[in-house]
């Protein structure tokens, strides 16, 4: 009987596919082909992390070396430094940067004139449209030896050559650029919050702090939790572009992160296998983090993951 129902479902599926072939060919087709070529084939390419890859011999002809490259970088103090740099940059960035959009949204929600509110929003969102290169160019100008910041302090410090200055520069410029934009979703959630509740709270004589606790915070709480968890799950995937654009030969002690290291080792030095191994290691930590994070979300969200 089991075999027969199986037969039947197979038959039904075939009939369905024949009737709806357009869905598979026209609609799904392009996305599936791009995904297989550009996402799945490179996954196969990970094999070179376990080889002494020779571009002329290809994957099939290169010599297998097992975990040699993993042992090599895991025992290298330089690599540990870069791993630590990556973690510090994103963890500090998250801790400093996360609360600010929420505060901005709560403040915006207290602006009574919608015209003024709109103008402020226009300014707050603007930096999001500046490119990474221009942002880093501005940072370099403002902090240059003869720039306005040094002029203000009456000093001649070249901030971009000081390793200790790299993380604050990176994080503050990130807040400058992204906090306003990140506040949009909280602002949207707050504008959906019940005004009647707020009015009732006001009539009851609740002060602003009590109103925030009783009305506004509940309206955004879920979003705050989900956002925090999502960002926490992404701490290993911190981007290449900005760190690279803020690097100088002098601040590498804190500015070299895994993404920039993989680029330099792999594409500039041609150590394909070694840097693929490093990249794979990074991806695996990231996947573990994401799975852990998803488990936390499931717990908080009545069994529903992301």
């Amino acid at each position, binding site marked *: 009987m089991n075999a027969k129902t199986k037969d039947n479902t197979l038959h039904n*599926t075939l009939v*369905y596919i024949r009737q*709806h072939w357009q869905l*598979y060919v*026209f609609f*799904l087709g*392009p*996305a*599936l082909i*791009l*995904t297989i070529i*550009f*996402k*799945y*084939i*490179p*996954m*196969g*390419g*990970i094999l*070179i992390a376990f080889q002494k890859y020779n571009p002329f011999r290809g994957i099939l002809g290169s010599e297998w070396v097992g975990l040699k490259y993993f042992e090599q970088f895991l025992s290298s103090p330089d690599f540990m430094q870069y791993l630590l740099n990556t973690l510090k940059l994103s963890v500090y960035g998250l801790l400093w940067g996360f609360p600010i959009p929420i505060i*901005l949204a709560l403040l915006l929600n*207290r602006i*009574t*004139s919608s015209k003024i509110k709109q103008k402020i929003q*226009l*300014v*707050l969102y*603007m930096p999001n*449209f*500046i*490119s*990474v*290169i*221009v942002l*880093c*160019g501005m940072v370099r*100008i*403002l902090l240059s030896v003869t720039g306005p910041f040094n002029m203000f302090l009456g000093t001649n410090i070249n901030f971009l050559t000081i390793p200790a200055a790299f993380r604050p520069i990176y994080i503050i410029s990130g807040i*400058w650029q992204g906090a306003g934009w990140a506040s*949009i*979703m909280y602002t*949207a959630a707050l504008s959906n919050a019940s*005004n009647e509740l707020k009015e009732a709270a*006001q009539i009851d004589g609740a002060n*602003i*702090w009590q109103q925030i606790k009783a009305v506004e915070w509940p309206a955004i709480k879920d979003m705050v939790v989900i956002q925090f968890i999502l960002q926490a799950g992404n701490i290993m995937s911190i981007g290449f572009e900005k760190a*690279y*654009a803020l690097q100088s030969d002098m601040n590498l002690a804190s500015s070299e992160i895994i993404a920039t290291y*993989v*680029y330099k080792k*792999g*594409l500039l030095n041609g150590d*394909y296998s070694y*840097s*693929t191994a490093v990249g*794979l290691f*990074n*991806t695996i930590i990231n996947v573990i983090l994401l799975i852990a994070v998803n488990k936390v979300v499931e717990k908080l969200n009545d069994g529903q993951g*992301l």
Partner: protein
Amino acid sequence: MEKTLTVKKSEFARASMGDKIFLLIGYILLGLFVVAIIGPVVYIVIASFMDPITLQNKGIVFDISKWTTTAYERVMSNSQIWIGFGNAVLYSVLFSVISVFITLLCAYPMSRDDFKGKKIFNTIFIITMFFGGGLIPTYLLISNMGLLDSMWAIILPNAFSVWNMIIARTYYKGVPNELREAADVDGANELVFFFKILLPVCTPLIAVLVLWQFVGMWNSYFDAMIYLNSAEKQPLQLVLRAILIQNEPDPGMIADMQSTAQRAQLAELLKYATIIVSSLPLIVMYPFFQKYFDSGIMIGSVKG
């Protein structure tokens, strides 16, 4: 909406003393943040009009009579900037159109309850959000495909966005079922239904996705840096990188200066004008899209 506004308007006046202080501190903080955003931008704008020597020695001077537009003339007459600009427009338009089209197409079957194989395809797509080959295997693939130094190397690999597909799928699910049923009665096939009935009611979704993808491509530089080598294929961000980050402007921009010191000063001045000229198009355009942001964010915050 009107009513709530009038209630809100009297809020500050009706507030108690403690609340007034609370609000005042809040407004000041918000004001400081706004000033912190505008400040650097204003500095760059003013500095871009100044004589480099004065700027270096005295900082900003508000004496408009001494301002010059030399930097802008040099930037605007530089061919590299214009080539980069043209390339950025080409890549960003192609990328956003192709990407959004493929994503919208794919989201349609994925939004249908009766679509057979949905679970398998969903898994295939979702895996790529968390796991990938990484930089080197992708680079080797592009290189083996003969796509090095071709614009398709920066357009195709990321053209399909799983995240955007999930957003579009969720959006489709919110489209009333009556539309679908009406189309079935007419005997419309899938393609006709999709283009004639579904897409026209998804304008906010399409606007938001196009905007995201366009801005994303316009502002990025990494893929172009590793895949495009020819000078005539460089997008704007790479031209900017040479001027702003590497301090290596196109020699033609500063070659007529006599001394090295003069050339260095001019190169500094060019940075300000370059920042303004290159950032202006998006910053001028973005307020026109602002009305889509709220709906876009709401779309984006809905989980698939």
